[in-house]
């Protein structure tokens, strides 16, 4: 059986009547995924690869449309309708593997030769190669499917590497950011982080909070008598004490050698603030032992709250008021705290700008 028939010999050049004869072996080699159909649309020959995809060569004489479902163009009900689509790109699938879309093209043959349907793997080639268990010998050397597979695998590996790089860069950036916002010695926030957070919570008019400015008492003595290592140690202890008192949304920062700023969210009542201040000072006054030596500290705290202002204060205003309150507390002795007093309704200050308390 040979496909087509030989043309009468003619000189080289364009000749639409010239026809080649192809043996089944040649067809199999050039188009391993072809189906050769008789004029009634029954299979006369199936290429080795399409036969493998069908789970074995189809019985000769099987109707094409019993083996293959044409999806596009739509409404191809019989073989005549299919032949009318000659030369167009067809979307199709094997009825035995309808989840793997294929593409094809049909061409009618001269005389009673019938038609050839050539098929290739569609965009589902990766799955199709795996599911049909195809190997290199199943493709024509001219078929680029192998190169597509090669590219697919290469891309997968490279995308993996790119993702790793991106993840490493992100981790490095997060670490750098955390470092830029953290006080290395105590692990608390630093001045920059506090400034950012203070501006942020003040910008949110619904956020109410107290700002505490805490300054250690006798820190210089600890440093001078026991050395800087002891000083660092007590600062770390203060870090622990502050952290223990923080709730979600609160922030404590070391903003100077022995100075700390603390934002306490939704903590506005004088009673509540007095309690917190006393607890913090008591915690800091508990003697700390460092290499056998006892270090004794205390602390003074200045406090202001967002409730103490008629209009939303600026960060600088609030910082100045806690500063002032801290100054009043220090002036009254050590281990004291002072709460900034609101201005009167007419905007003028009362007799005192802060109420000083003894923590003991």
């Amino acid at each position, binding site marked *: 059986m040979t496909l087509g028939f030989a043309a009468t010999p003619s000189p080289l050049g364009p000749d639409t009547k010239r026809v080649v004869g192809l043996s089944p072996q040649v067809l199999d080699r050039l188009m391993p995924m072809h189906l050769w159909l008789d004029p009634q649309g029954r299979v006369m020959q199936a290429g080795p690869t399409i036969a493998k995809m069908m789970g074995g060569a189809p019985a000769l004489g099987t109707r094409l449309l019993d083996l293959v479902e044409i999806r596009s163009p739509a409404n191809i009900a019989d073989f005549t309708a299919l032949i009318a689509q000659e030369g167009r790109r067809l979307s199709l699938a094997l009825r035995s593997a309808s989840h793997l879309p294929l593409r094809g093209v049909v061409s009618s043959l001269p005389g009673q030769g019938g038609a050839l349907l050539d098929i290739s793997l569609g965009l*589902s080639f*990766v*799955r199709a*190669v*795996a*599911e*049909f*268990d*195809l*190997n*290199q*010998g199943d493709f024509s050397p001219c078929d680029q499917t*192998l*190169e597509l*597979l*090669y*590219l*697919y*695998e*290469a*891309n*997968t*590996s*490279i995308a993996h*590497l*790119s993702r790793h*790089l991106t993840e490493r860069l992100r981790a490095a950036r997060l670490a750098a950011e955390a470092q830029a916002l953290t006080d290395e010695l105590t692990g608390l926030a630093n001045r920059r982080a506090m400034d950012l957070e203070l501006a942020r919570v003040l910008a949110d008019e619904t956020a109410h909070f107290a700002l505490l400015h805490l300054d250690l008492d006798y820190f210089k003595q600890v440093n001078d008598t026991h050395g800087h290592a002891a000083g660092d140690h007590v600062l770390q202890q203060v870090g622990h004490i502050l952290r223990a008192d923080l709730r979600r949304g609160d922030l404590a920062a070391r903003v100077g050698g022995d100075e700390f700023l603390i934002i306490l969210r939704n903590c506005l009542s004088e009673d509540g603030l007095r309690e917190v201040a006393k607890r913090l000072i008591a915690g800091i006054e508990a003697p700390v032992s460092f290499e056998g030596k006892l270090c004794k500290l205390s602390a003074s705290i200045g406090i202001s709250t967002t409730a103490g202002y008629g209009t939303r204060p600026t960060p600088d205003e609030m910082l100045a008021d806690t500063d002032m309150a801290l100054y009043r507390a220090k002036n009254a002795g050590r281990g004291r705290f002072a709460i900034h007093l609101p201005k009167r309704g007419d905007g003028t200050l009362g007799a005192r700008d802060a109420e000083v308390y003894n923590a003991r």
Partner: protein
Amino acid sequence: MHGMINRALQGFLVAHYGERSWDEIRSIAGIPPEGFEAMLQYDEAQTLACFEAAVTVLHKHPNALLEDIGTYLVTNPALEPLRRLLRFGGPTFLDFLLSLEDLRDRGRLAIPDLDLPRIRVEELDPSSYRIRAQWSLPGIAPILLGGLRAMADDYGALALLRLDGMQPGEECLHVQLLDMTFAEGRQFVLGGVGA
């Protein structure tokens, strides 16, 4: 030099000689602690410095080290994706050998700025071939020697390979095919990576 190549060198040194040796080599060669990054470009001098430091620290002959690198690239389980890409070269070892002429273009298909060696394969007789390789760095022939020996094993082929002249600019290998189906070979299924 593409980071992929430097990264392969680093991967080889760590896999074969451990992190401590790598740290020593890295420090002598002046490579930062995080090592090479596969997706970046590096100066060739850094690649050479790394290799020279490895030769010094490990007391190995340069060619022996290069050959081991070639073997590592094909056989290390962590580099299975690379072995698979190489197996796309063809269904038999001879097909693969002949496909080496496409290696450079195949590399570029995967990574456009990857600079792989330019390789010509000359048939001397149906069972002997000369492989001529040109690359920007010296030492490509010993790397290929190790890699091709491992690929012959991978295909289950029996082949004799030897260096066949190393001049600056071109390095050659001689390959004699003895038995294309000598052993079972390792599996290569096209659809093996899954979708």
